[in-house]
């Protein structure tokens, strides 16, 4: 080991190059994983806030997806069951239906969300986006709308918004709540499509007092998609106990496009990083191979003195292990250090152009980073494995040297 260290110190420039070939991929991997981790968490949490919750209980329906959800007219027992299920941390009822929003001279297709204003704040960020007026209050006969929809209809705060609900279970219903608040989301589509009313207003719209379309629940201890197994457990638990005619739907099924994106994000990241790792490994291979060529005579002497092939190989591999270990640790620590610094400074603010794009993907406008200690350690270990495997060929060539031939080498 001492000899290996001295060999590395003997040609410092080359050793530094080899170190860099190990440090850079590990550093980048830690940084990229932290960015991906932050994006996953933002997207996961925000999607859940806007749309789905961790799980929903609905009435089973033969209708195609995307249409109006079937009504649950008597939900009390079902709500109690969800609330009493182990792992469920929070729940609320919601009534969603497609509707037509109209002003005296214009109309637009929208989605009405009937909610309990006090409880919905936990998952819906709309109350935080209120730019004008106020958010809903319990028993409110008002509506909050996006600034985009408001512009399309040519209405203002205080005006009545005509909502024409059409539900296949009950036919048509009309309501005309007053606009009490205007929200301005980063994603303009959200501001164009969603309006929120008190649950009672929505029930009036479907002419079904007490009706809901879903129970939305959140599971405790979920910080991102990596905790999705906890949700799956609760979904399975609830599915066993739910009465016939109802279904429990997990987040992945509720937001399939998002779940699909989540499924490819990591493999895509790993795929790109594999290329970096292989490049790093290739540099290590070349540098060690050059080193072996330069030391042909010395290796011949070592073999002549009685070193077996395994011994010669282990000498070369120990050099690779030193380079790989030092480089991987430096790369991992510097990457983790930068991630920690960025997080301490509050994340990476995204420039305006990206802000809308990120918002559309359900992300925050400041990119937060997240990486676990296990990911950092695995990043370093992966590079050590790649570098040592890359050294295998030069080590094998060294072990195959014939002592007499090698000692003739100048």
């Amino acid at each position, binding site marked *: 080991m001492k*000899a290996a260290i001295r060999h590395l110190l003997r040609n410092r420039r080359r050793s530094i190059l080899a170190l860099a070939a190990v440090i850079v991929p590990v550093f980048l991997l830690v940084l990229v994983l932290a960015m991906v981790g932050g994006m996953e968490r933002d997207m996961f949490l925000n999607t859940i806030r806007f749309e789905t919750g961790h799980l929903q209980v609905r009435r089973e329906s033969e209708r195609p997806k995307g249409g109006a959800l079937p009504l649950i007219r008597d939900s009390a027992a079902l709500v109690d069951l969800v609330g009493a299920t182990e792992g469920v941390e929070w729940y609320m009822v919601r009534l969603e239906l497609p509707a037509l929003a109209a002003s005296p001279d214009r109309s637009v297709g929208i989605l009405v969300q009937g909610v309990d204003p006090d409880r919905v704040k936990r998952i819906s960020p709309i109350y935080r986006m209120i730019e004008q007026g106020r958010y809903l209050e319990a028993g409110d006969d008002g509506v909050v709308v996006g600034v985009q929809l408001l512009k399309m209809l040519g209405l203002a705060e205080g005006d009545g918004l005509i909502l024409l609900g059409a539900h296949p279970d009950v036919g048509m219903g009309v309501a005309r709540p007053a606009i009490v608040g205007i929200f301005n989301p980063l994603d303009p589509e959200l501001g164009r499509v969603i309006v929120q009313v008190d649950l009672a207003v929505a029930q009036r719209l479907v002419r079904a007092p007490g009706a809901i379309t879903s129970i939305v629940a959140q599971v405790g201890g979920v910080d991102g998609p990596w905790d999705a197994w906890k949700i799956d457990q609760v979904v399975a638990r609830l599915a066993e106990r739910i009465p016939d005619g109802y279904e429990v739907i997990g987040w992945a099924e509720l937001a399939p496009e998002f779940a699909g994106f989540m499924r490819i994000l990591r493999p895509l990241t790993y795929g790109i990083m594999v290329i970096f790792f292989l490049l790093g490994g290739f540099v290590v291979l070349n540098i060690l191979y050059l080193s072996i060529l330069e030391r042909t005579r*010395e290796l011949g002497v070592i073999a*002549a*003195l*009685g*070193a077996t*092939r395994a*011994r010669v190989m282990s000498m070369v591999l120990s050099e690779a292990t030193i380079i790989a270990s030092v480089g991987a640790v430096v790369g991992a620590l510097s990457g983790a250090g930068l991630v920690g610094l960025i997080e301490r400074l509050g994340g990476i603010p995204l420039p305006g152009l990206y802000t809308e794009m990120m918002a559309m993907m359900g992300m925050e406008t400041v990119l937060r980073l997240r990486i676990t200690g296990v990911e950092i350690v695995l990043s370093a270990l992966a590079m050590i494995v790649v570098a040592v495997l890359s050294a295998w060929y030069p080590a094998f060539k060294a072990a195959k040297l014939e002592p007499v031939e090698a000692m003739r080498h100048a």
Partner: protein
Amino acid sequence: MPEQLLLNTIDLKKVYETKGASTIALDGVDLELHAGEFTAIAGPSGSGKSTLLHLLGGLDRPTAGEVHLDGVALAGMSRDELARLRLHKVGFVFQAYNLIPVLTVLENTAFTMELQGIARNERIKRARAILAELGIEQYADQFPNRVSGGEQQRAAVARAVVAEPSIVLADEPTANLDSKTSLALIEMMRRLNEEHGATFLFATHDSRLLDRVDRLLTLVDGRVTTDEHR
């Protein structure tokens, strides 16, 4: 007169094939060497001296014939078996010293013992002792490039004898040394032979060394032409 047969060859041949042409380096060498001998092989350049040493030390394989070292036939041994045989039974001294540049003189001396798996304290103790005996203890912590050629060759001899091999094969050990240093080295090896019973076989045409050996073999065109006991 030493009696124990240490090394013998039977009709040993080595032919090099290069670009369709055959070069006979050794042409039927029969040789017996006994423990404790201090022997030299002399002969002109290209007579096959180094080739014979390589075959005797298991560094190379003969085209035909047999080599027996300490009663063990080298033919049929695998590469690693030959390595282990060299490690435990043969010490080498090369013309160009061939110390490992990243190891100190002490570490170089202890290197074969390290390969043998001898405990660190023991090998350091033995290495220091032999360096002291050969008069280069003061260079123990120097790297080879910081000491003279003569001192490097002494260190190489120390490395060759420290693990007490059955035989030390030395290929032109004085060729790169000046006269005074050569003489000192020859005397040192002679003393190791006389005091410790170390067996030496040299390939050399250094007359100073040839004058000091007990037995002189002459090799011409790959054949032993004379075998002179003194």
